[in-house]
């Protein structure tokens, strides 16, 4: 699916002068409840409840006949962290997600900067090119990368390298961590560029002008003014890219194969192939914990900055 940016709602409606004739706030509390109840009930029933159920499953025991129940146990976690194969998958997941996030930051910054500092037409084209692939299914985009990265002479990159004479023999890229990083970078790159561009766009140009008037060089302005002011966007982007990469399935399955196994593939294998629900749930819990931890930390950091600035 097109995984799309996760961002907070525009939190508060813009403050307006108090007006006794305000139409909506005059509605009774019952109306608010009626508007919200169906969606919240749906979310509790089909999201919160099953999610908690699955995570709880990780401390339960599966009987030989497949039923899951008591006694409570931490055995699955011991098994997960005690088996080198699984620790390896965990480390691979963290490594791929970190590298993808780092590369996305390095390559996202220039593009975001150009987007906000260029003329409206170019900005519009760049925005289209960055966003459009988001709406193309991940499976389709990953297929394109499989065509490009394919090993042997049939791979497009190899064809290019051999034809131009840059390489004597084809390189092996497909089914490696590098291939997964390239694919993930492509899939999640917009999540880095868009929040960054919106943070950069909010910087008051007068601050940079002031710095210039005071004699700062453009490099120094970039380092001391632009970068610090864009950090919230960078934090949002990094959180998104990291969590989405860590939780991905399609890209590692197609581009990584068995040599770059990630947690998502392990969950799939444990549940659909081995039918070991408690252990699959354990792997899922580890993945969810990583993703939520990264989100909570980044949310805290952003909030601290905001309160620090308000104070």
């Amino acid at each position, binding site marked *: 699916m097109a995984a799309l940016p996760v961002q907070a709602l525009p939190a508060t409606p813009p403050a307006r002068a108090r007006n006794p004739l305000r139409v909506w706030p005059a509605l009774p509390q019952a109306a608010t409840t009626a508007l919200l109840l169906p969606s919240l009930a749906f979310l509790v029933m089909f*999201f919160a409840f099953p999610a908690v*159920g*699955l995570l709880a499953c990780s401390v339960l025991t599966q009987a030989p006949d497949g039923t899951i129940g008591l006694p409570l146990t931490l055995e699955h976690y011991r098994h997960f962290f005690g088996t080198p194969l699984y620790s390896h998958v965990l480390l691979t997941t963290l490594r791929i997600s970190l590298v993808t996030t780092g590369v996305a930051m390095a390559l996202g910054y220039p593009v975001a900067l150009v987007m906000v500092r260029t003329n409206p037409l170019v900005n519009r084209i760049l925005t289209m090119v960055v966003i459009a692939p988001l709406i*193309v*299914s991940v*499976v389709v985009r990953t*297929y394109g990368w499989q065509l490009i990265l394919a090993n042997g002479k049939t791979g497009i990159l190899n064809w290019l390298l051999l034809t131009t004479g840059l390489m004597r023999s084809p390189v092996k890229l497909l089914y490696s961590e590098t291939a997964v990083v390239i694919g993930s970078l492509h899939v999640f790159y917009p999540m880095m560029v868009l929040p960054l561009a919106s943070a950069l766009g909010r910087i008051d140009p007068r601050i940079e002008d002031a710095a210039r008037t005071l004699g700062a060089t453009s490099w120094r302005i970039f380092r001391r003014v632009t970068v610090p002011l864009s950090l919230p966007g960078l934090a949002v982007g990094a959180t998104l890219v990291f969590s989405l990469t860590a939780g991905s*399935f399609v890209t590692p399955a197609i581009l990584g194969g068995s040599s770059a196994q990630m947690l*998502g593939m392990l969950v799939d294998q444990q549940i659909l192939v081995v039918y070991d629900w408690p252990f699959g749930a354990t792997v899922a819990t580890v993945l969810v914990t990583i993703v939520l931890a990264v989100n909570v930390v980044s949310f805290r950091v952003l909030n601290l900055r905001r309160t620090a600035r308000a104070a």
Partner: protein
Amino acid sequence: MSNRLSGPIAWLLFPVTAAMMFFILAPLLVTVAISFSDTPYVVFPPRGFTMNWYAKVLQDSDFQTSLSFSSLLAVGATMGALLLGVPAAFAVARHQFPGRGAAAAMLLSPLVFPVLITGVALLQLFATLRSDSTPLNMLIAHVLVTMPYVVRTVTASLTLADTNLEDAARTLGAGRWRVFRRITIPQIAPGLAAGALFAFMVSFDNFPISLWLADAQHNPIPLLVFQMIGNVFEPSIAAISTLMILLAMVIVMALERVMGLRRAMAI
């Protein structure tokens, strides 16, 4: 100010930007090019020109079944997401009530949770409930993943709408319902359209939820393509992929038209 990008920094930025645009488009362009290749296997550069892969794919019964199932599912999910998401967006954007922040967070929470895991959790739930109708299970799951997008887009357009117009209409004697119908709805119509288009595409493209819930008779397009990647080596996959890219481009144009791409994504 367009003169802000100058000096050595600009010399670095423009080539990187151009390279990244190429990086973003490359896998899509390659797929389109290969889909016309007149060879029984994937080869680059593509040889000859043929539309045969499209003819083959469009006549393929698996593809037809998947296409109609995916389309029905996406339409159903969009309607469900609008039905649940639009009222919720109204409550969050226009009403002050205790717990408003928590309600907004709850509505968007499926976006933060790894989608793959949401899928497993639903599989377990449906197994426990003995709900064995695949289309119904998948509809529920797809409503769940598309609703947050509707909530976000509609909330954004409600926040941007000018409430003074509503106040003015009230002052001039219009009833609440009339204000809603004649003032509010027309103002947020682009947001509603964008939310619906988004929900449709998110459902149509979804893989990590469908992976768990689909069966052989109800196999959405992304799953079909994924299975083909594993065992078909001819350019027919490229042909299906190109059709999906084409659909996505149509939706992108429509989104840009109705609301502006960036605003529709609420970024």
